[in-house]
């Protein structure tokens, strides 16, 4: 692969990149830096309906007739931020698959597989979901199944014990790959005791303590129609689908008030640079993240920040990838990005390198990051990033699965289709002055937070150069809290 699924980061030959940037500017428009808008074609979100059923259930429907498939996502507004015991949201969601509506786990799986369909469930920080796609002709088989799982799961005891055991084993296995777990350590470092620090997966000790009554209680508290949305995209007729869903969910009623967590409260502030050093004695490379607090998903500057981050670490020619990979050959990939939730988020730079080049790579990452303030963006680079972001936007909303995900996010994070339909105009409107304001306002500059996974015997002295170090073993329970 030329690039990699999870690119990571850091810079080296500053002068080279600066020279290229200024030559681009000159080539673009002689001596002046007039902005240049690239026409990438027009794109708007396909028509959809949002309705509320009589029991309070929110339904999004978007017909798409390209292939004879239907994709359905049910999303419940409850996730790891609502955990009382770590992992209860995830185990409740995964537990929906363990039998429902008079059918055992195996019977459900056999039926779904026989139709060639997919059906899965899980949880994130703020939402729990059931996700499915199937042939349009099978809607009357799949929709009742999804409803039974959502409304009246069995939480079969034997199956629950097996699921829990698999999940605990899976946690150990995940820790064999630094890339698979590093973000969990980072969220814990940044958010600490705030609910956003909760690892969705829980940990081996908390999962061992979980009981079926806890799952039932979590389900009863949050899986209620007024706290749930169902999104349907694909080959169907909306009026008929609405009737179908109304009938299917007729008897599902709210049972109790939903307990809300105020996630905007008690967000941490950093008064020092912290380093979480995660020791993996047989590591052959060092994997690390650097960052801090980011933004919430409904931030009005979300689109502008996407463009600015594209320059820093959001594409192949970004500063981070150019310096760390292309100029220095220190890594296979380096990148940066914002992860945005409903009330907060993180920003992080990520990359990896051989153990022996750890110091050089971290230093170069920080030096490149500092260019945001020392040098800022130039017009040609900004124009290019704007064209790139616009040009790559439509394929993000091409499939039924992607469009279902969009509507689910709209429900969970409280934005609407203006995000899509005004996207191009917002990108086009971003100026150099505005980009400077975004850099100064949102990119963490002081007291950076580091997670470094590698061979501590060799890299501990390097970790110390960047802040107050806490060292844990990767095999310890949990993610460094």
């Amino acid at each position, binding site marked *: *692969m*030329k*690039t*990699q699924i999870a690119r990571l980061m850091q810079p080296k030959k500053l002068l080279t990149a600066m020279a290229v940037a200024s030559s681009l500017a000159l080539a673009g428009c002689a001596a002046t830096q007039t902005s240049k808008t*690239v*026409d*990438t*074609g027009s794109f708007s979100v396909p028509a959809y309906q949002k309705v509320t059923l009589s029991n309070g259930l929110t339904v999004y429907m978007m017909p798409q*007739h*390209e*292939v*004879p*498939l239907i994709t359905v996502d049910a999303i419940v507004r409850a996730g790891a931020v609502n955990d009382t015991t770590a992992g209860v949201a995830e185990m409740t969601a995964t537990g929906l698959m363990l039998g429902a509506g008079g059918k055992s786990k*195996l019977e459900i*799986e056999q039926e779904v*597989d*026989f*139709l*060639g369909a*997919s059906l899965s469930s899980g949880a994130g920080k703020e939402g729990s979901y059931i996700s499915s*796609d199937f*042939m349009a002709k099978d809607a009357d088989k799949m929709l009742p199944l999804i409803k039974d799982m959502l409304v009246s799961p069995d939480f079969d005891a034997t199956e629950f014990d*097996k699921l829990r055991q698999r999940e605990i*084993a899976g946690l*150990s*296995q995940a*820790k*064999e*790959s*630094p*890339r*698979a777990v590093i973000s969990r350590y980072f969220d814990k470092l940044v958010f600490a005791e705030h609910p956003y620090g909760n690892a969705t997966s829980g940990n081996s000790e908390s999962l061992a303590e979980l009981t079926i009554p806890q799952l039932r209680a979590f389900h009863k508290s949050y899986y209620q129609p007024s706290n749930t949305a169902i999104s349907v995209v694909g080959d169907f007729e909306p009026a008929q689908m609405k009737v179908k869903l109304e009938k299917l969910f007729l008897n599902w009623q709210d049972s109790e008030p939903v307990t809300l967590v105020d996630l905007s409260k008690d967000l941490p502030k950093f008064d020092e640079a912290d380093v979480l050093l995660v020791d*993996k*004695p047989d*590591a*052959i*490379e060092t994997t690390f993240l650097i960052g801090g607090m980011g933004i919430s998903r409904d931030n009005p500057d979300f689109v502008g920040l996407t463009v600015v981050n594209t320059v820093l670490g959001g594409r*192949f*020619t970004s500063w981070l990838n*150019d310096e760390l990979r*292309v*100029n*220095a*050959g*220190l*890594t*296979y990939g380096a990148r940066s990005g914002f992860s945005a939730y409903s009330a907060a988020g993180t920003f992080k730079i990520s990359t*990896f*390198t051989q153990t022996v080049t750890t110091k050089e790579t971290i230093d170069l990452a920080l030096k490149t990051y500092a260019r945001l303030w020392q040098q800022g963006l130039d017009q040609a680079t900004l124009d*290019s990033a704007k064209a*790139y972001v*616009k*040009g*790559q936007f439509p*394929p993000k*909303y*091409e*499939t*039924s699965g992607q469009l279902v995900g969009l509507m689910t996010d709209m429900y969970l994070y409280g934005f609407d289709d203006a995000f899509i339909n005004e996207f191009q105009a917002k990108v086009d409107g971003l100026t150099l002055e505005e980009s400077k304001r975004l850099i100064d306002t949102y990119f963490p500059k002081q007291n950076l937070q580091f997670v470094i996974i590698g061979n501590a015997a060799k890299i501990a002295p390097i970790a110390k150069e960047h802040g107050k170090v806490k060292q844990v073993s*990767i095999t310890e329970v949990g993610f460094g809290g």
Partner: protein
Amino acid sequence: MKRYTKALLLSIGLLLAAPMAQATQAKDIQSFTLDNGMKIMVLEDSSIPNANMYLFWKVGSRNEVPGITGISHFFEHMMFNGSKKYGPKMFDRTMEAAGGANNAYTTENLTVYTDWFPANALETIFDLEADRIENLDINEQMVESERGVVASERLTGLENSNWRVLQEELKGAAFRAHPYSWSVIGHESDIAAWTLEDLTEYHKTYYAPNNAVVVIAGDVKLAEVKQLADKYFAPIPAQAPPRAVKTVEPLQKGERRVFVQKASVSTPNVMLGYHIPATSNADYYALDLLSSILTTGNSSRMYQGLVDKQVAIQVDTYMPMSFDPNLFYVMGVANPGVTAPELEDAMISEINRVARDGVTVEELEKVKNIKLMGFYRAMETINGKANTIGTYELFFGSFDKLFNAPEAYNKVTPEDIQRVAQTYLKRANRTVAVLAATEEADQ
């Protein structure tokens, strides 16, 4: 072209459900061949204002020899490092400034370049690709920095993927003659050793228009593509065809085994590799369906027999499309407390059960439905369409085979599944690779 696409898919669906007359929509995939031998296929689809170009080059690690292993993949990297008109870094900078993005991948058989862009950047993409096909500048400084990148890619694969670690060792044991023996990324010492001459020769031989298939899908018109292909690709001269890969892997005459130690592995991983014929063989379809019967979905044989019974926490099968006879992989990760031999026995037991008792008609119907859904999902995007069309063109000899595939799957019977399991998934034809924190001691 949405209308076309749906018609094509429906006809395939019907074929799978009940064979019917050959679909007529094959004509909607339009193709032409330039005088220099480059074949170009076009699928018009205006569902989004974007298009893509996929360039399939018939070169992969199977075209390498010891001493230059990994050079196909390394070359993939070099193709981004500058040519005559667009110098160092300018391929990516120019494409991104026009709203486009790209990537590439190398396999045992192919090197594939993918460009994704707003449709109105089509000419820029042609210009960029033509420049690097005809005039790549291979210079020493670029080669040196790119070696570091590839070394890092190799390292991070081994750090983060047990599959990569095991597969590399398994291939080395399963093949003793054929170039499938080494990993696509190549041996560490070879990565350090490529010369400029190796690379220059490789480019001239394999990046000739007569060695490529190009697929363009999206919001484009055939006439426009033809005009641009004439302008940019047609002037690139053809070359003598590359040498054929002549080595035939000798028949395996008994089980082979390898062990890999890695301290941080929490429970043993087991991978089995069985020699199977090339994709062009008629048994491909039965083997592909067998693969699904074993591991697709929680109702599959190996999920039920291993994961549900808490012998494994994960099982999978993998069967790459392949020009030459290759391997059918089966991989499992042990549940805590389960030893490598126990996991291996359980995996083999499920395979042997198919060989001994066969499969049911219902099981077979199930996996045919799963294949159909997978096909629909792939054809939901312009990228999926381009990739599917190109893949059929290369591995089955013609994209027309896309229209024969449903019938071929449909013809497979439970007896065929049992026969291929008996023929190929047997002990003497098997290599076993085990990865664990410690090797079991001698008794």
